[in-house]
């Protein structure tokens, strides 16, 4: 029997058998394959059998549906094809398929393949518009409006609370530090926090800080509530309204 296999970064999340009813894909929970990701539209795409062929149809989604890396509005599927929706892959597995009657292809014309898009300036512009729209959406989401802060739990510093406003936050004894450490024998630059598009990252300075009790390797993304230790100073990383 044919099935669709939902994968994310190589891991299988869900398998859905293909029957007579269309299989719907989207962010809304009532889809057959719900995908909880902002890049996915509420009702993003569907897969169904038409005239004996398996078809994927994009439901006017914002970010598009991709069949083997090509954006499609409607396309025929074959065994082994991969549909990309947001960051999720949906694998078409038709290995034991015997459900389709032999003569059904005569009854209706084969589904029309929508022309695949060529990446010209128009597509580039559209893609940038999508990117801009995605950016706007994420800015509207509550997580982005909240301000990242550091609260001092232990140790001598020049303040008890800090709001992270710049791209770079330096923690240390240096007078260029945002979080100035007052204790002796602490380095001028003990640690640094860098703002990236997707959040805040802690990096080492002249010493290696710890996050939740573990020394960091490279740049480490900070999560709400993380406990940072820089030498003897303990800081709590919190997003606040």
């Amino acid at each position, binding site marked *: 029997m044919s099935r669709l296999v939902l994968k994310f970064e190589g891991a299988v999340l869900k398998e859905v058998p293909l029957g007579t009813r269309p299989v719907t894909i989207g962010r809304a929970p009532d889809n057959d394959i719900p995908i909880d990701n902002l890049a996915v539209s509420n009702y993003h795409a569907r897969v169904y059998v038409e005239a004996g062929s398996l078809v994927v149809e994009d439901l006017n989604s914002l970010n598009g549906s991709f069949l083997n890396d090509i954006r499609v509005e409607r396309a025929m599927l074959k065994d082994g094809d991969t549909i990309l929706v947001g960051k999720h892959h949906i694998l078409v597995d038709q290995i034991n398929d015997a459900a389709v009657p032999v003569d059904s292809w005569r009854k209706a014309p084969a589904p029309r393949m929508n022309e695949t898009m060529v990446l010209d300036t128009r597509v*580039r512009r559209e893609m*940038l518009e999508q990117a801009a729209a995605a950016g706007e959406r994420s800015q509207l989401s509550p997580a982005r409006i909240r301000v990242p802060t550091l609260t001092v739990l232990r140790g001598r510093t020049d303040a008890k609370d800090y709001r992270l406003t710049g791209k770079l936050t330096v923690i240390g004894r240096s007078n260029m530090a945002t979080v100035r450490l007052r204790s002796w024998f602490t380095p001028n630059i003990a640690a640094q926090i860098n703002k990236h598009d997707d959040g805040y990252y802690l990096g080492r300075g002249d010493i290696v800080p710890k996050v939740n009790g573990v020394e960091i390797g490279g740049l480490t993304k900070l999560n709400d509530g993380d406990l940072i230790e820089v030498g003897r100073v303990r800081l709590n990383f919190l997003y606040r309204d």
Partner: protein
Amino acid sequence: MDLYVLSDGMGGEAHGEIASKVAVQTIVDHCRKAENSRATPTFGESHPGVSERTNRLTSAIHLANRVVFETASVNPEQRGMGATIVAAWINGQMLSLAHVGDSRAYLLRAGSLEQLTGDHSLVAEKVRIGILTPQEADASELQSVLTRAVGTNETVEVDSDEQILIIGDALLLCSDGLTRMVTDPEIASTILTSSSAQNAADRLVDLANENGGVDNVSVIVLRFLAKSESLLDRLKIWKRISG
């Protein structure tokens, strides 16, 4: 002045070279002028989240964009020429970084290599909005399609960033001629096993050519040896046209 600028031209071999030369010269001149006089006018938007120096570097790229664009608009045969830019300005331990296009900056710290810049290319933008995987991007034939370049439009958006450098860090600025041919682990191990910044730069270019490099390869390798600016390891720029 510890300012390092790498640029990769586009729009035909000869014109691309003009674009990158003009851009680099404009950036260096503007930053030098600003060092001597803070009253030097700024170009483009400045960002409150970064230092004055970082904003100055961004301003220099905005000016370079204008100069290249205007040069091209009075010379019809040069129309469409442009260049990528990745620029690093170091003051004490503070690194100011700005870029446009797909030339990159990497930081090698404590053995791990971090890419500090995000490419302004079609495939990279698609990966960022989640409609292409990094593996698909690496395999794509559209890697050369840029979404931003210096000099191709009247204005350009510049990305900037800041980092504190610590002793032992190595900074790499490079064109796509390197990163398409040499993997991140190869880059990291080459720099780690090199005797000097010069040696690392030579070996990276050799490696790109050995791996079948067909594009120009430009790299700048810097090693941060001590807090004193004067002890910054010598940089080396390599540009080679293969074949």
